[in-house]
C-alpha cells in the first residue's frame, strides 16, 4: 500500500503546484453557484412559501372530471401553495398569462370529461410564458399528476378500465374519487428538490457535483498524461504492478474530489449562505457521488486513445450529465424520458439525497441514493479497468 500512497502524494503535490485543482474544485463552482443563485434563487426560498398564481378556464363546465380538476386546484390553494383564478374562456386565460396576471394557466376543452371516460384523446392544455421554465414545469407536473391519478395510471388507463367491464357511471365515480385525492402529496412528490432546497444550497450542490467530474478527471486523466510523458513506462519498469498504479489514480481522484467538494461546501456556506444539514450523512453522500463521478470519468479515460480525447469526452459527459442531473435547473416535471435519463446520473441522486436531508430525512431516507451511487461506481469501475489496459500500454 505504501507505493500506492507515494503515487497519490506525488500526484497531489503536482496538482497543487499546477493550481488547476483550485480552479475546478473551488473558484469555478463558487462563481457558477453564486451566479445561478443570484439569477434564480428566488424560486427556492423555503422560508417564504412558494406560491404560484395559476389561472383555469374550464370549457367542460359540468363535466365530472373537469370539475374534479378544479376541486383539486382549489385544495392546493387551501394549502397555500397556489392562487387560483378562474377565467370564462381560453382567450381570457391567454391574456392573463401574457400580461403576467397569473404565472400559468390550465385550459380544459369542452368534452374533456366524456373523452376521459371513453378513453379518447383528452388533454389539459397548460398555458405558460416560455421564459418561465420552472413555473411551466410545475404546471405541467400538476396536469400530468392529475391525469395519472384520475384513471389510476393514465388517461389510457381509463380505456383499460372500460375493457375491464366498468360502466360509464362507475367511471364517473372513479374520476370523482380520484379527483378528491390529496393533490398536495402529488405536487410534493414531483418537486422534491424545488420544495426542499433553497436557492443557494441547490445551486451550490449543483455546482459542486458538476465540477466534481472535472476535478476527479485531473486525477484519472493523469494516467494518460503519464503515458504521454513516458513516466508511465518508467513506473511500469519498477516493481509496482499496473493494477496498483490504477488503484493509486482512482484513490487520487477520490481524495481530490472529496477534498474539493468539502472545501467548496465550507466556502459556499460562508460566502453564498448554502445550508448543509446532517453533515455526517451529507459527507457520505459526497463520498458516494465523488466515487460514482470518478468511476464514470475513469470509464471515459480508460477507453480514450489519448489525453486530449479523454478530456474532450470528459467535458461532453460532464456537461450532459450536469444538465440531465438537474444541476443548473430542476428537470422534474420534464418528460418521462428526461426523468429516466436523469436517474442515470450521479448528479440527480446526489441532489435528491441532499433534498431528502434538507426535508428532514436522515440516513434511512438517503439509502436509495447511496446505493444507486455505489452501483454506478461498481459498474463503471469494472468496465473502466477493462478499458484501462489500453492506457497502461506504453
Amino acid at each position, binding site marked *: 500500500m505504501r*507505493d500506492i500512497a*507515494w503515487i497519490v502524494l506525488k500526484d497531489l*503535490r503536482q496538482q497543487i503546484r499546477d493550481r488547476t485543482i483550485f480552479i475546478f474544485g473551488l473558484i469555478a463552482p463558487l462563481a457558477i453557484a453564486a451566479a445561478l443563485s443570484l439569477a434564480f434563487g428566488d424560486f427556492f426560498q423555503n422560508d417564504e412559501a412558494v406560491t404560484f398564481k395559476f389561472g383555469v378556464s374550464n370549457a367542460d363546465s359540468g363535466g365530472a372530471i373537469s370539475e374534479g380538476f378544479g376541486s383539486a386546484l382549489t385544495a392546493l390553494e387551501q394549502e397555500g401553495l397556489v392562487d387560483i383564478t378562474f377565467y370564462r374562456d381560453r382567450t381570457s386565460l391567454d391574456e392573463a398569462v401574457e400580461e403576467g396576471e397569473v404565472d400559468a394557466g390550465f385550459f380544459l376543452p369542452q368534452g374533456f370529461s366524456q373523452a376521459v371516460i371513453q378513453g379518447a384523446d383528452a388533454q389539459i392544455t397548460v398555458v405558460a410564458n416560455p421564459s418561465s421554465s420552472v413555473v411551466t414545469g410545475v404546471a405541467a407536473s400538476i396536469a400530468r399528476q392529475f391525469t395519472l391519478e384520475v384513471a389510476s395510471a393514465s388517461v389510457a388507463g381509463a380505456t383499460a378500465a372500460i375493457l375491464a367491464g366498468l360502466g360509464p357511471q362507475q367511471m364517473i365515480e372513479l374520476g370523482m374519487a380520484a379527483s378528491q385525492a390529496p393533490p398536495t402529496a402529488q405536487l410534493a412528490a414531483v418537486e422534491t428538490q424545488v420544495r426542499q432546497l433553497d436557492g443557494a444550497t441547490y445551486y451550490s450542490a449543483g455546482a459542486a457535483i458538476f465540477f466534481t467530474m472535472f476535478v476527479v478527471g485531473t486525477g484519472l486523466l493523469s494516467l494518460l498524461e503519464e503515458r504521454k510523458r513516458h513516466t508511465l513506462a*518508467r513506473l*511500469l*519498469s519498477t*516493481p509496482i504492478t499496473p493494477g496498483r498504479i490504477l488503484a493509486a489514480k482512482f484513490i487520487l481522484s477520490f481524495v481530490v474530489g472529496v477534498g474539493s467538494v468539502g472545501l467548496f461546501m465550507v466556502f459556499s456556506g460562508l460566502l453564498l449562505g448554502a445550508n448543509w444539514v446532517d453533515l455526517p450523512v451529507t459527507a457520505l453522500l459526497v463520498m458516494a457521488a465523488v466515487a460514482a463521478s470518478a468511476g464514470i470519468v475513469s470509464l471515459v479515460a480508460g477507453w480514450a486513445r489519448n489525453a486530449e480525447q479523454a478530456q474532450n469526452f470528459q467535458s461532453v459527459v460532464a456537461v450532459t450529465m450536469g444538465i440531465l442531473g438537474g444541476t443548473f435547473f430542476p428537470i422534474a416535471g420534464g418528460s418521462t424520458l428526461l426523468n429516466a435519463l436523469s436517474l442515470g446520473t450521479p448528479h440527480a441522486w446526489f441532489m435528491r439525497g441532499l433534498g431528502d436531508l434538507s426535508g428532514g430525512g436522515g440516513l434511512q431516507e438517503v439509502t436509495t441514493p447511496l446505493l444507486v451511487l455505489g452501483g454506478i461506481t461498481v459498474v463503471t469501475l469494472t468496465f473502466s479497468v477493462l478499458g484501462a489496459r489500453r492506457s497502461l500500454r506504453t
Partner: protein
Amino acid sequence: MISPLSSLSSRESPPVLRVEDLRKSYGEIKAVTGISFEIAPGENYGLLGPNGAGKTTAIQMIAGVLAADGGRVTVCGQELTTGTTTVKSHIGWVPQEIALYDRLSARENLAFFGRMQGLSGKPLATRVSEVLELTGLVDRAGDKTIKFSGGMRRRLNIGIGLLHQPDLLILDEPTVGVDIQSRTRILDQVAEMTSLGMAVLYTTHYIEEVERLCQRVGIIDHGVLIAEGTRAELVKTVGERDRVTIAADGQINAGVGQITALDGVHEAGATTDGIQMLVDDAAHLLPRIIESLTRSGVTVTGVEVEEPNLEAVFLHLTGRALRD
C-alpha cells in the same frame, strides 16, 4: 577500447542478462525477430543499429515494460515478464525519452522513483544525495525539472535509473539531443558504472560511443541481431584492414614499390602528398614500413592510422551506412 582479458574474466560469471529468441511483431511488421545474447556482470554490451532497427522495442521487452510475443528474458537468474515485479528491482531502465515529472524537483523525482524501487529512509536519502552528486545536479536539486536544460534533464533521467544500484542498467540512446559537455559526462558516468561491476546494455546509433564504452557489441538491423562479438572480433570477421596514410617527400614511387613487397601491405599507392595503403595490422607492421620507405629515399613527415570501425562492419554486413 576493448579489453579482451577483462571481458573474458567477467564472462566466466553467470550472466546478469540472458535473452533467448526474443520476438515482437506489430501486425505484419516484425519489430524484433528472435534475438539472443547474454551480458556478464561488469560488462558493457552495446546494441548498435540504425533508427528503426528494433533496438528500443528489444530493450523495452528486456526492461519488462513491453510484452514479448515470444522468447525469454532472464535477469539475475529470474525470468522476467511484464507481470513480474521483484525481478524488476534488479533492472535500471533509462528510456530514450526524458521521463521526469516537470513540476517536481530533481530531488523529488529521485526520491519518488527510489520509493517505487523499494528504497526508503536513510538509504534512500543517501542514494539521492549520491546520485545528485554523480549527475552534477547538487546545486539544482531543489529546482523543478521543467527549469532544467536538456543536458541536465538527460543526466537526471540517467540518474533515476542508477538510483537503486541495479545489477543491470539499460540505457536507450542516452545521449540523443545533448550537448558535447553533457554527452562526455554521461559517457563517463556509464564507464564508471561498468567499473563498479554493473552490467550495462547500451543502445545507440553512435559508433564512437559503442567503441569507447562497450566490451562487446551486437549489431541489430530490421529486428535481427546480425553480428555479435568484441570490436576486434567483428572487424576480423569481415576482414577489414587498417588504412595507413603517410605524409612524405622524396622518392615516393620507389617507396611504394618497396612496401608493396612487404607481407600484410595491400593496395599501396602514391597520393598528392604521400602514400596510402591498407595494412593487416598497422601497429605491428608500421616500423617495418617506415624503415623500408626511409631506405628508399622517402622522407616521412607524418603518419595517420585509421583502424577499421564498426561503421565499416555495418556497411559490410548490410550494404548500407549505419545512418542511412
